[in-house]
């Protein structure tokens, strides 16, 4: 109903109230938002404004207290835990602030992890890993362990892991917060390139002005509500 062909994410009066020792904390207070396929969107706002909460809900990591979320034509706000788990595997790529690579797996194994869950065969996995490593500029790093990489390199591996299975949406909660600004900007430029090339939708949150400037659409949250929403060319 709500989702015309080009809408990827649609939220309706989204509300999330946490219970903190019996005291209700209203993290999201009614967000109506539509994000279209292929967007490169930043969510910004002061600390505690609800960015993480919002991203968690639209990616099916958390469930809303009220309201609806549609993602790729599916109403995920009513899915069960295991449905959400499969949905995330097949439709969403995550990039985390602290990279969150699996320390015991090599770069290649980290990247192919989701494809393994999906049952992609070995040759195809290898082919895709090699291709993506070139795209993120990590040729020759396939057999390294994450601990032997710099923060910037680890986050590139995380980007590769997120996009290799060709999800509909990449979500990144403060992906550059642990990087110095130069490295952060480089990472964002790379993500923007990948976004242009593949058309995969990117939604990320940030505090960094330099990073915000690279977004095409900038949504500002304040106290769990949308404060402003601007799209630039």
């Amino acid at each position, binding site marked *: 109903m709500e989702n015309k062909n080009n809408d990827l994410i649609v939220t309706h009066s989204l509300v999330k109230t946490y219970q903190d020792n019996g005291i209700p904390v209203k993290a999201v207070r009614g967000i109506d938002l539509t994000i279209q396929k292929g967007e490169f969107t930043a969510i910004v706002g002061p600390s505690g404004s609800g960015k993480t909460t919002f991203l968690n809900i639209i990616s099916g990591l958390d469930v809303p207290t009220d309201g609806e979320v549609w993602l790729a034509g599916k109403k995920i706000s009513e899915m069960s835990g295991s449905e959400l788990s499969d949905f995330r595997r097949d439709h969403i790529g995550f990039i985390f602030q602290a990279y969150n690579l699996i*320390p015991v*797996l090599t770069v290649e194994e980290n990247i192919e992890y989701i494809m393994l869950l999906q049952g992609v065969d070995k040759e195809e996995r290898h082919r895709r890993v090699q291709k993506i490593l070139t795209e993120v500029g990590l040729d020759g790093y396939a057999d390294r362990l994450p601990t032997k990489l710099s923060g910037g390199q680890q986050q590139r591996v995380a980007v590769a892991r997120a996009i290799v299975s060709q999800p509909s949406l990449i979500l990144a909660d403060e992906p550059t917060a642990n990087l110095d600004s130069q490295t952060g900007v480089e990472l964002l430029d790379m993500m923007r390139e990948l976004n242009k090339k593949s058309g995969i939708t990117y939604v990320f949150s940030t505090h960094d002005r330099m990073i915000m400037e690279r977004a095409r659409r900038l949504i500002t949250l304040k106290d769990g509500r949308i404060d402003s929403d601007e799209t630039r060319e």
Partner: protein
Amino acid sequence: MLSLKIAWRNIFRQKRRTLLTVLTMLGGFTLSAISIGWADGTYNRIIEMFTRNRLGHIQVHAKGYLDKPSLYKNIKDYGDVGKKIAETKGVMSWTPRFFTAGLASIEDKSMGVQIVGIDPVRENEATRFNKKIIEGDTFSEKASHQAILGKGLAKTLKADIGDEVVIISQAADGSIANDLYTVTAILESGNMTQDRSTLYLHLKDAQELFVLYDAVHEIAIIAEELGQVDEVTERIRTKLDNPELKVAPWQEFARSFYIAMKADKEGAWIMLFVVILIVAIGVLNTVLMNVLERTREYGTLRAIGTAPLQIFRLVIYEVAMMAIIGVIIGTIISIPANYLLSLQGIPMPEQFTYGGIEFTHYYSEVNLHSLYLPAITVVLSALIVSLYPATRAARIAPAKALRSQ
């Protein structure tokens, strides 16, 4: 595959913790493997000494003989009975015995004796009769009026090899049984009480003396394996199919001995219980700590689409691998340890005598049972205590786990 790979590599992350956990399981395994091997070894050795060398594993008597022994309660045509027994699966050997009492005299010394008529060839095959001879030679194969005396009896009668011994008793037909035999050997059975009063004759000589041709009072049977005595007993019963004959395994005809042995063996189970406890506490601690430390990692795996069951497996595999390593190393240690203890034995703090046999050493034994019981115990108790942490890991809420930076 992937879960196995991650689980395997996770083992090497906290090397000290893993080492400690594996050592706990290995220690628990080895401890119980040795204690079971030891209990089995000591137990089986005593039973073997008691049955294999003397009583036999299974005995056949005329009905009522054991309750009230008598010359007349005998097994007729024992050769036929023996033949059927020999044909039974699981029987290694059988030997006929003739029991009665009489008076034995050498010169001016006399003594009431238990007369045991044996088939020298069969008796030696079944209970290693000849090994018990400490002086002189065993019976000739053909009956030739020879007697073998227990050590204590020989002393009382001041008997030497070659002496003539007179036996007086009453024959089955009521006539006086009276004959002269040459002492051919002196024997030490290991049962001193018995040796003070036992005189052995060739079966044919005994049957002739007591005018009971072709009859015996007992057939002792040695099974191929101690562990199969019950089945073999049942097979013999079926094969003989004779209500006049009673077939009993050693657990029945040596009941009090059996009960003593059984009580002793129970100690091994307490050991297993202790092992379960040690392993459970050690493993629970390790796995809980691992899961706690990896909350964010499992949260990440959950976020990117790993199913709860896969996380559960990850935790369980890791424990299973440590347990298997512990069991493998434990087996490598336990087999030679039990083997060494089976050769060497450990002196008992308190020696004891049972049924005239002196027991001085504990011996171990290498057997399957002493390996698979501890293996199952260790692996199962490790897995069972891991269920809780594994469930916890599987239930990690990704959003919450990812916030805990």
